[in-house]
């Protein structure tokens, strides 16, 4: 059953992500990305990392995707994006090469059977409980730092995106637009 689920998810995720990177349409790409992420959270659940799966759903599929969606609206991307590709074969050669080496590497039996768990899950606790115990003890300081980082990022996002909000680009005439084409 788990085997089946894994393969199913694996195939779907791969397919969806391929769509994400190959599609010319932003909307398709974003949608398939979101779908792929949902399926990844599925894998997390299979792995028993329930809390992580939930976070994945909330943060990624929820928050991040929403931000992307808002951002997309700023750019006029309803039509297909046009991209110039000089050497498509090179890209796939590189990607394929890395994929191949990684696969070869991981296909070999993983070494390090003698690895000792630093923070084993607390016996009898559910996954969220166990995570909480480790996160708020051993990783308290990184956790706090991460929270500060998120705060900084939030403020930064607002400031950056919100600058000169009073000027509306779409309401301007073509000729008084800031120097766009010349600088490009």
């Amino acid at each position, binding site marked *: 059953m788990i085997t089946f689920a894994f393969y199913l998810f694996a195939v779907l995720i791969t397919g969806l992500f391929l769509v994400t990177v190959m599609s010319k349409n932003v909307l398709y790409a974003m949608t398939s990305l979101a779908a792929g992420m949902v399926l990844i959270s599925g894998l997390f659940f299979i792995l028993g990392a329930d809390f992580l799966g939930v976070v994945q759903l909330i943060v990624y599929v929820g928050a991040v995707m929403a931000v992307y969606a808002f951002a997309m609206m700023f750019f006029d991307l309803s039509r297909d994006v046009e991209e110039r590709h000089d050497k498509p074969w090179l890209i796939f050669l590189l990607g394929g090469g*890395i994929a191949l*080496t990684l696969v070869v590497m991981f296909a070999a039996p993983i070494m390090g059977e003698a690895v000792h768990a630093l923070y084993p899950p607390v016996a009898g606790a559910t996954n969220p409980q166990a995570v909480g115990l480790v996160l708020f003890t051993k990783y308290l300081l990184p956790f706090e730092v991460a929270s500060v980082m998120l705060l900084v990022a939030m403020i930064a996002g607002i400031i950056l995106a919100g600058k000169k909000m009073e000027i509306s680009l779409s309401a301007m005439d073509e000729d008084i637009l800031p120097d766009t084409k010349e600088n490009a």
Partner: protein
Amino acid sequence: MENYVYIALFAPLAGSLFAALFSQRPKALVTGVVTSTLLFISFVASVILLNHVHHEGAVHVTLMDWISAGDMSIPFGFNIDQVTAVMMTVVTLVSTVVHVYSNGYMDHDKSFNRFFSYLSAFVFSMMVLVMSDNFLGLFIGWEGVGVCSWLLIGFWYHKADVTRDVNPSISPSWAANEAFIMNRIADLGMLVGIFLIYWNIGSLQYADVFAAVPSMNHGMLVTIGIFLFIGAMGKSAQFPLHTWLADAMEGPTPVSALIHAATMVTAGVYLVIRANPLYSAIPEVSYFIAVLGTFVAIFAASMALVNRDLKRIIAYSTLSQLGYMFAAAGLGAYWVALFHLAAHAFFKALLFLGAGNVMHAMDDELDIFKMGGLKKAMRWTYLYMGLASLALAGIWPLAGFFSKDTILEAAFNEHTYGIWLVLWFTAGLTAFYSFRQVFLTFAGDERYKPLGFHPHEVQKYVLWALSPLAILAVIFGWFKEPFMEFVTQFLPAYEMSEHTEHNVVILTVVTTAIALGGIIFAWMRYYKGLKRDEKVEQSLPYRILLNQYYIPILYERVFSKPYAALSKVFWEDVDQQVVDATVDGIASVIQESGDSSRKIQTGNLSDYLKLMSGGALVLVALVLFAAMQN
């Protein structure tokens, strides 16, 4: 006695420093007086030491440690034995006379004070040279006299360089540098000798070294002997390092008298005498020294035959007499060499100082062809120079007769008849050139008159100051026996064989005969005045002699100029074009590779990402490869 040693040694230094205080002031008579007085004190102390050594034996003092590193330990130690005492007395005596003389001679020179400072510094260095009890101490003096000689030859440094045709010495500063550098070449030889002694014997003290000589490997002794002699050759201007001495005549005349006749140039002879245990053990080197000395004797005398420069003639004669001394020392007659050294110091200094008087009278004109008939104006100088020349020629009963005659006897005694013959012939040449010079200067027609010179005798006190030298030039030879007894307490005695004893009268007669012959020949040719013979003067041998066998020019062509040219090549072609260009080449390769790889920097992020992933691929592949290796 220690105090006398220090007084003798440091009085000249004190004088020098005192004079140095006034070096930039205008002439202050006090410097001359003080330095002369201190020199006299040094002389008195030396005489006291001589007397002490005569009665009670050698004095040894150690002032302090100088260099001490590893196993090497070199003190400032002074040893006053018979040889040293004689040298000290001779040096301080001649120096005192020269100092007093210089008060008159340098009267009008604006650097009067500086001159006395240098001159006394020279005496100090010379005292260190003769008094040291080890080879490195000797080397201090050795280099010290070299520097003082450099300073004093170049005393009139402001004169400009001229061509060799105008002045064969080019300029005082040129001559000074030549002297210093040539001496340095020899000093390197000496330094190598010192190193050899140190690493083979482990000490540089004379006492230790000479005690170790008998037990040493003969080949090593020969090597040491050769290298030390190279040092001696430079200081005593032996062929082929002789050219500097004649050029050194650019210095003031008192300097020529003191340094380049009486004292410094005899340092080489002193070294050989001092190292007599070494040289006695290596007869082949000693024989070479004798032969070289003999060669220099005739070689220098031949150049003196035709020269027209008053001082250069005396310089060549000095060179020739140094050859005699080396011949004596090389033949093993060390005390004879020392005896001739002392006698020569007196009469040669006298000769030079007399020449100085003439120069003064003639406004620094040195060409004897422009003089003549000076005896009227300069009676006393004529007497002094005549006496000194007689002594130099070796006429009985003057000093030169005894000393030179003994050298010839020694040559005969050793059955080295070739050496004897050459030295004998040279005695004739010596007599001829000495009197050629005396007659051309003082006798005959007054050729200076049309040139507008007004010669006059020098100050009285200067003449009085010369009298000790004149007296010694006459009587010193009479003390041959006591002198021999005294110095052979330390030096090996030199016994004449029966055979020589038999022939001694004949030898004396023969030697005196050729000397007289030389004088008579000079009298015939020059007493009545100068008769120039164009044909002779144009002849090849004459020109060769006049140009010092073309050796200075040869040196310039073979050493100086190629050295300068090679230096230029090294700098401009090798250093800049090869060595530095290689460095800059490497730098420009790096720069150009950077310049060409600049194209990668397209500014397009996409290209960078491609490159980055290429790099990532390589890294991952490397990891994989490394994993497969294990």
